[in-house]
């Protein structure tokens, strides 16, 4: 359910990205007017972050965590149901703002005040409502994950024997519970400013627009890790499976994820280097951000060490996983560059940042999800997917993605700001290349839909353990996994 919803949202958010790239194909205004362009960037960001990536991970959690820890199902099925059905409601409200008078939210997914309060469109109130509902849904999902992991593990599965996907989700769930209320708080303050005459963020009423950014990014930075940690987990299963060799440095992987999660709370102002934070603050956030590169690096080194001297084969999940490691590392490099505060003055709010976060989000979150989906599809459906088609899907996505996002680094360095519907002539060539890549990437995703539908309908029956090197409880049950899988908990040595 979550996965279907999330894929629908992925296509919707993706088609908005296609509108954006179509407008940016050439200089000049061709297809849409600036007002609508801003609505498209905003909705694209919101839908991708909250509608596609987050529900997809919750979906994976619901399906895989019980199987991996030897539980019959999630601990709190009713709450699960609630938390799912809130999502379509939230996004129905969000999408309906497109048809409201004054249009949809147009202030970016970061909705900085006062652009989103005093100067926001009338639909902002609905946007706030949608965020609230979605936040409640995430918190319920997170509580369920924690309850399941802490209470329903099979006898003998100590914390340090838990599969990494379970570990990363446990930590993600704590992050969610910590920051979603902060998001709810900041949108509530906006609501008060807009409708009840307060001035939290209105300077003319004694408020502080910068306060908004501090609160938002206190939520915002952990949020980006919420979108990546579960993918780290999934990749940590796939790489060993296709290397036919155990994961290198299990314990250090767990500690690295913990370190990243903790550090993610003290780096928020790296999104605000140009706001005029005092020098001491600026230095603190620069050092803290650079520090995050250390545990992130440890994870990459461990994955590479896992592959080293293994016996590698490259089925679709492995292809996506290897691309994940390479491209995510590139995104990590540009993240490190952004962390150097003086340089960030030049990079900030340009296409360089857009390139950076797409390199961590598309190969990171999205490729992670694809890799996980192909890896566990046989377990879910009882059929093998079409390997040749899946490889085509991979290569087209890989090429399209790089063609779309790599030139954005050059655009940013050459001085193109983000969130603009039209640009100066010197940016024309790379924008055209980028748009072509984006269309290619976008169109390719329909192939994924085809592959999954065919796999659900039929195909070669899958054995309990379709991958030679895979480890874990989920492979001990038949494919497809029966309902209430482990009614009697298995024993873990």
């Amino acid at each position, binding site marked *: 359910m979550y996965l279907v919803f999330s894929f629908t949202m992925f296509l919707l958010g993706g088609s908005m990205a296609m509108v954006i790239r179509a407008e940016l194909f050439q200089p*000049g*205004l*061709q297809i849409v007017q*600036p007002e609508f362009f*801003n609505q498209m960037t905003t909705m694209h960001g919101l839908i991708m972050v909250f509608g596609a990536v987050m529900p997809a991970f919750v979906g994976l959690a619901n399906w895989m965590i019980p199987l991996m820890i030897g539980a019959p199902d999630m601990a709190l099925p009713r709450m699960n149901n609630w938390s799912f059905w809130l999502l379509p409601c939230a996004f129905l409200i969000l999408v309906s703002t497109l048809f409201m008078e004054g249009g949809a939210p147009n202030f*970016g997914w970061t909705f*900085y005040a*006062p*652009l989103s309060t*005093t*100067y926001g469109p009338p639909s902002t109130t609905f946007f706030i409502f949608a965020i609230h509902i979605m936040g409640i849904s995430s918190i319920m999902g997170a509580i369920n994950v924690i309850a399941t992991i802490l209470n329903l593990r099979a006898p003998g599965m100590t914390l340090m024997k838990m599969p990494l996907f379970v570990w990363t989700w446990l930590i993600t769930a704590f992050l969610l519970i910590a920051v979603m209320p902060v998001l709810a708080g900041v949108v509530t303050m906006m609501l008060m400013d807009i409708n009840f005459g307060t001035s939290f963020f209105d300077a003319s009423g004694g*408020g502080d*627009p910068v306060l908004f950014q501090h609160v938002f990014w206190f939520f915002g930075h952990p949020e980006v890790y919420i979108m990546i940690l579960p993918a780290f987990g999934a990749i940590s299963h796939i790489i060993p499976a296709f*290397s*036919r*060799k*155990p994961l*290198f*440095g*299990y*314990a*250090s992987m767990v500690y690295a994820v913990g370190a990243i999660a903790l550090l993610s709370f003290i780096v928020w102002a790296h999104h605000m280097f*140009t706001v*005029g934070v005092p*020098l001491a603050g*600026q230095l603190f956030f*620069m*050092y803290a951000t650079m520090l995050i590169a*250390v545990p992130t*690096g*440890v994870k990459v080194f461990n994955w*590479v060490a896992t592959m*080293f*001297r293994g*016996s*590698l084969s490259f089925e679709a999940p492995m292809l996506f996983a290897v691309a994940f490691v*390479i491209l995510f*590392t*590139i995104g990590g*490099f540009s993240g490190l560059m952004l962390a*150097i505060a*003086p*340089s960030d003055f*030049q990079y*900030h*709010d*340009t296409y360089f940042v857009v390139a950076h976060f797409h390199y961590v989000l598309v190969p990171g979150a999205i490729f992670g999800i694809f890799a996980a989906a192909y890896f566990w599809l046989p377990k879910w459906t009882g059929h093998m997917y079409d390997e040749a088609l899946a490889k085509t899907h991979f290569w087209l996505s890989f090429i399209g993605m790089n063609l779309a996002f790599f030139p954005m*680094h*050059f655009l940013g*360095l*050459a*001085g193109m*700001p*983000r*969130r603009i*519907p*039209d*640009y*100066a*002539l010197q940016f024309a060539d790379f924008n055209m290349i980028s748009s072509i890549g984006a269309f290619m990437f976008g169109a390719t995703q329909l192939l994924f839909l085809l592959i999954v539908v065919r796999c659900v309908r039929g195909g070669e029956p899958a054995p309990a353990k379709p991958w030679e090197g895979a480890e874990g409880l989920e492979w001990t049950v038949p494919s497809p996994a029966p309902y209430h899988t482990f009614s009697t908990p298995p024993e873990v040595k």
Partner: protein
Amino acid sequence: MRVHAQRAGALFGGLAVPAVSLADWTMNMRPGVTSTSNEIFSLHMTILWICVAIGVVVFGVMFWSIFAHRKSQGHKPANFHENTVVEILWTIIPFVILVAMAIPATATLVKMYDTSESELDIRVTGYQWKWQYQYVDQDFGYFSTLATPRDQIANRQRKGEHYLLEVDNPLVIPVGRKVRLLLTANDVIHSWWVPEFGVKKDAIPGFINEAWVRVEEPGVYRGQCTELCGKDHGFMPVVVRAVPEPEFQTWLAEQKAAAEKERELTQKDWTLEELMARGEKTYQTTCAACHQPDGRGVPPAFPALRGSPIATGDLAAHMDIVVHGKSGTAMQAFGSQLSEVDLAAVITYERNAWGNSTGDMVTPKQILDFKNQQ
């Protein structure tokens, strides 16, 4: 094994070539024309090369495995999965590299923050969607708006060389002097950026941010607003003309004289035609971004003026909204932005253009009286 080595070599080559050609100016950051931008550029290149080096090592090992340790090549998996020494090593080494990187970055940052001992103060105010520059000690200022014709944006005309990066009145600064910029905004947050200076700073309503620049080479430098500020965020460029000191002094004197002339115009007797002509110009530069060139607006965000009850009705109400704006909306108080002549002209224009045929004429003196009444 030789084959593998060759393949790996080709791969490194493939990776390194784009990295080298990054030094090309169309792809890379430019060093710029200030000491700050030069330091930033060298930080940027250092960290870029560090990343490339780490990348070569990590991806090198990885591609080695991909080529050499395949199952299809009959490679048997080893079974190691832990090594505390290695883990500690690859925690410490990156840490040391980062410390080495942090030291020059800190030094540059400290310099960027030192706005003391400035030799010229300019107040930069962001508006939706233009910049205002005020020379604090010289007591004059002006607005700087996009000069690219709408026909170019709408693809009805060939685009010029500086498409979207040209303004009517650029900021003028003397070379060789330390200029301090005091940045703020009137409505939403904007951000003032000139890449060649290495200066980007947010202009935030209710705050005054500081930045400084000392330009060594005369020239015209172009940048853009970099904080999303609404509909025309992409259409509010920054253009700075850096000129030698004597030229700067002449320019200052001219500007002051022109401001004086403008004041005299208030006393002149205007005809309806003259006001309409001037009003149309003012309208197109100042008001058309929101109310549109044809007065139709973009409802509901920006109301139409064609046939609007205010623009065709009570004159006092019309003057009031233009002079004082409407707080809490994008309609700014133009009383402090435009001269009396321009205010009179634009109001006259709005009351007689696009079929708004009130026949009313508002003179600069009336505006002056209206302002004084308050």
